[in-house]
Structure formats: structure tokens, C-alpha cells
């Protein structure tokens, strides 16, 4: 049967990560010699390294070797396909892929199907034919930041967005989530939405220009943390750190450090290590023959100075489980 093209943000057949054990029981026994292969976008971004860490943590826990590879740069679409094809050839029992784009790993879906290997699409770009997806809701990143502004800046004002690479799924979704949510009430005005190309320097320059034109700006939303940290420097250089709130996305460690130092206002952490653990668990449950919902949602949380400690360190998982329980 043909699957409808997946939209990970709206798919009905979904389950929250916190309910995996409750609904599908303890982690099952795996066939001997099970090994997992994973490929992600690039290791030049901490987010993807943390995801790999999560794979390894869970793999070690259940005694499954995991090979984790990444393309040489973000946007290296065919290179990533080559890597994924190599993994299929080498006979891994399950593949975890975080594609560069919605379609560049499409052939893998077919090759893996032919080889009877389940594929789990982990985060970011969404392969329409994916049978399994583990990750967060990209749009929600932007929505959460917008809600912070609506709650904490009740008088509204001017805000600006610094986007990632033009045309990239995560970038489009995050931007759209923020823009749509924040403009709903009519109090906020998005005065600029410009490309930062995932690049710190570009974002710094863009923020400088925006601040110069709109000195009364009250906040920035950046599609990732690297860009947000560049913006923070620009805000500091303009002497506006008390007036302008800056938010990033991803929750890399530098972002936490900056939040604790009172510079970056906040970020939306999507807990890459935990995501990696959940993704591998999902993948291995599939190997064991369990039938799981199409989407397993992983946690997200808006991190600010107040709650930074709660979501970092050893107790993060517990905190997130609590959040999940509240949310249910």
C-alpha cells in the first residue's frame, strides 16, 4: 500500500517518545549480530555530533554496534547518498538517516526496502515516503519562541528573523512557525526576515544592519544557535543587550553557556542526545519486529536562564518525562 507523503509536523499516526515503553513494553531481545548504520548531515554542527552520541549511548546500553557517518558539508547531497548506499551494501540491519534534503536519500528507501532493511528518518528534512520518522516538530521551534515573546513582551514591538540556508526544510518551517504565531495577535511586527545561511558572520552583519535601521527592535529569532550567537555579539556591539532578546534553536552547549552568562536570551533545545537514543531505540524495536506508529515525537523545550539547569545535566531526561506527563 502506498503511504501518503509524510508531513512529520502533522502526521496523525504518532506517539510521544515518553510512551514508547508504556505502549510497546520493555526493550525487546534482538537477533544476534544486529548492527545499525546511521548517516546524518554533517559533523561540523554540534547538533549532529550530539545525535551520534545519543546513538552510541543507546547502542552501548543494549550492546548494538552503531556506525555513524556524515556528509562532508551541509548541502553535500550526493555525498550523503553515496554514504547511505555504502551502508546498505554493507548489510546493516537498520538505517537511521538524517537527510540533507527531502529527496536526496530517496533511492535508499527503495534499496533498503529491497534488502528488507528498515529505515528511520531522524529529524530535519523529511523523506515523503519514510515509513518511520523520529524527531521533533520543526515548526514548533519557531512557535515556542513566538509564544515567549507574546507572553513576556505583552506590549508587542518589532522583531526580526535571521534564517538559515534558503530553501532548507528546517529553515523554512522554523521561520514560518515563528512568523505566523507572532503576527497573529497583531501586536508584533516582523520588520526583517533575512538569510543568515547558518553562518555566524553573515548573521552578525545582518543583525548589525537591522539594528541600525530599527534601534527600537525588541527581539531576534535565529534558525540555529550558531547564528544566534553571532547576533548576540552584534547586539552587544550596538550596546542594546538590555533591550533586545535573542533566541536560537538547537540547544548546543555554547548556547547554554551563553544563556547562563546572560547574553543569549534563550534557545529551543531539541535534545539531540536524547533524540539519538530514542531514534535508535525505535529503530531496534523495528528490527525486533514491533509495529510502531509512523512518527515518534521527540521532546523540545524553550530554554532560558531560569530553566537552563533543569534541562541540562543528568536529570534532563527526568525533567522531560515530567513535562511529557504534564502535557498528556
Amino acid at each position, binding site marked *: 500500500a502506498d503511504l501518503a507523503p509524510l508531513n512529520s509536523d502533522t502526521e496523525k499516526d504518532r506517539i510521544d517518545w515518553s510512551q514508547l515503553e508504556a505502549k510497546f513494553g520493555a526493550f525487546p531481545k534482538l537477533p544476534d549480530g544486529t548492527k545499525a548504520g546511521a548517516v546524518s548531515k554533517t559533523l561540523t554542527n554540534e547538533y549532529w555530533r550530539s545525535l551520534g552520541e545519543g546513538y552510541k549511548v543507546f547502542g552501548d546500553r543494549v550492546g548494538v554496534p552503531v556506525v555513524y557517518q556524515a556528509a*562532508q558539508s551541509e548541502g553535500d547531497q550526493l555525498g550523503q547518498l553515496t554514504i547511505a548506499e555504502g551502508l546498505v551494501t554493507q548489510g546493516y540491519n537498520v538505517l537511521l538517516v538524517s537527510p540533507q534534503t527531502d529527496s536526496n536519500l530517496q533511492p535508499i528507501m527503495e534499496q533498503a526496502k529491497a534488502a528488507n532493511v528498515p529505515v528511520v528518518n531522524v529529524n530535519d528534512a523529511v523523506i515523503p515516503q519514510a515509513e518511520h520518522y523520529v524527531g521533533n516538530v520543526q515548526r514548533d521551534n519557531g512557535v515556542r519562541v513566538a509564544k515567549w515573546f507574546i507572553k513576556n513582551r505583552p506590549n508587542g514591538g518589532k522583531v526580526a528573523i535571521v534564517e538559515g540556508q534558503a530553501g532548507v526544510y528546517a529553515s523554512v518551517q522554523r521561520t514560518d512557525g515563528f512568523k505566523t504565531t507572532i503576527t497573529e495577535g497583531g501586536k508584533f511586527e516582523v520588520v526583517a526576515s533575512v538569510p543568515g545561511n547558518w553562518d555566524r558572520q553573515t548573521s552578525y552583519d545582518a543583525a548589525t544592519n537591522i539594528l541600525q535601521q530599527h534601534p527600537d527592535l525588541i527581539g531576534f529569532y535565529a534558525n540555529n544557535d550558531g547564528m544566534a550567537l553571532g547576533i548576540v555579539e552584534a547586539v552587544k556591539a550596538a550596546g542594546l543587550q538590555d533591550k533586545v532578546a535573542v533566541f536560537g534553536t538547537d540547544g548546543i552547549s555554547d548556547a547554554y553557556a551563553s544563556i547562563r552568562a546572560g547574553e543569549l536570551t534563550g534557545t529551543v533545545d531539541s535534545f539531540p542526545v536524547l533524540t539519538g537514543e530514542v531514534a535508535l531505540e525505535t529503530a531496534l524495536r523495528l528490527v525486533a519486529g514491533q509495529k510502531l506508529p509512523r512518527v515518534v515525537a521527540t521532546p523540545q523545550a524553550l530554554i532560558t536562564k531560569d530553566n537552563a539547569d533543569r534541562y541540562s545535566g543528568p536529570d534532563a531526561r527526568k525533567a522531560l518525562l515530567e513535562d511529557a506527563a504534564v502535557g498528556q
Partner: protein
Amino acid sequence: MRDAGTLIGLIVILAVFGALVPGFFAERNLINILQQSSINACLALGMTLVIISGGIDLSVGPTAALSAVISASMLVAGVAFPLAIAAGFAIGLACGLLNGVLVAHVGLQPFIVTLGTLSTYRALALIYTGGNPVLGLPAGFRAIFNGSLFGLPLAVIIVAVVALIAWIILKKTPFGEYLLAVGGNEEAAYIAGVPIARTKIAAYMISGLLAALAAQILIGRLGAAEPILGNLWELDAIAAAAIGGASLMGGKGSVVGTILGAVILGTMRNGLTLMNVQSFYQLLATGLIILAAMLIDRVTRGRG
């Protein structure tokens, strides 16, 4: 034989991976290498002709993207395959034409012209699609580029045919002589009656056409066309041509060498992946192997 150096380079690389990676020489893997090299080889062939003519085409990736999204959206809208494919090719030719006219008639530097059109064509692809991928290509279309013949993927066969045609063009036709003459000494070629502008424009148009062909192969494989497809393709294509002995000063280049160059790059990617080399070290290896390939070539071919 001028391409011997490149061939030796390829053999060395194959031998090293063969020794290090079990199953490297499995038929399935060798076919994988060819398939994975085919798109770059396709682009690199066009690039070779442009480079021989004394130019360079940085816009191949965005040309492919523009061609892909337009073909794809026509296909999704139900247009007949031949028409949709033809439209994609026409886009490729048009992109090449603009590059060629700016270089040949207006007299701008090829590097800058195609740097400008690199952004322009990409922007057009993004604007046309609103940044979204075009999904749901008909299975029939995908079958065209996804089939096999004699156990070889059709994409490989198509590119082999293109290579043969390019070889014939370069070795057996007046146009090939004109390319070499224009790149070798434009002034002399002019006095000898070579149609300079037409020759250059044709080279860019072929490059555009082959970018469009690469796009068709790719979207057939992927089942979707994205406006950001083809990112950084130009660097791989140039690297393949240069490893194959093309001189960026013009007047010099080889179809066989370029194909070998593309296969060297493909082999390297494949082998490093199979060895599970971490991506930073893969990047390192990529850089070093490009340098090594040029060094081997240099040593075996001698100065000049």
C-alpha cells in the same frame, strides 16, 4: 598516451581500497561506484569542453536545479514525459546560452559570468518553487532513468554514450578542433576563420544541456526535484576535468581523462565510506587525494 597518468592514479587508488576494504571489488560495489560517478561525469564532460575553450562554468549546479524543478513540475502536472524532459533540456540550453553570450559577445570573464549566473539561476529555481521540493514524479518517468541494461544501470549507460559522443566531438568534428583552437590561441583561431563566439556559446550550451541531463537522471533516481539540488557540483566537475588533464588556461583537455577523473573521485568517496572513515578525515582524504592525483599525473606526464 596522455591519459596514462590519470589511469595509473585510478589503479593505485583502486588497489589501495581493494587491499583495505573487503568486498570492495564485488561487482555490486563496482557498479555502485560507476553509478555514483555518473552524474559528476556527465557534468564534467560539459565542463571539459568549456574548459578546453578557455572558459569555466560555475553555474552547472543551479542550471541543473532550474531544469529539474521545471521538468518535475511539468511531470507532476501531467505533461507527457518527452515534452517535460525536452523542457528541462531547453532550460539547460538557455542557461548555457546566456552564459555563452555574456562570455563570447559581451566579453566578460567566464569565472565571473558564471559566478553571477550561479546565484541567479539558483534564485530562479527557489523563487519558482517557493523553496519547496517538487514531489511525486510519475513512476513511468522514473523508470526511464532508473532501469538497467546488461546489468548496468541506465544512468551509467547514458553517461557512457554521452562520453562517446563527447569524444567523437572532440576528436572527429570541426567543432572539436575549433574548441581546441579557441582555447589554445583565440586570436589565431579568429584569423583562421574559426567562429569564435559560436564555438564558445556552443560549449556553454552543451555544458548546460549536460547539467540538465544530469538533473533528469538525478530526479529520476530521487523521485523529487529540489531547488537546492546540485549544490557544489561545479567543484567536483572541475576537479574531475582537471584530474583528467584539462588545463584551466584552455586549449587542453581529454574526454577519457575526465571520465577517469570522475571515477577517481567516485571511487574515493565510495572507498572511504566503506572504510567508515569519519567525515572530517574523509574531507582530509578528499583534499589529499586531489593533490596526490595531480602529483601522480604530473610525474607520469612530465612537464608541460
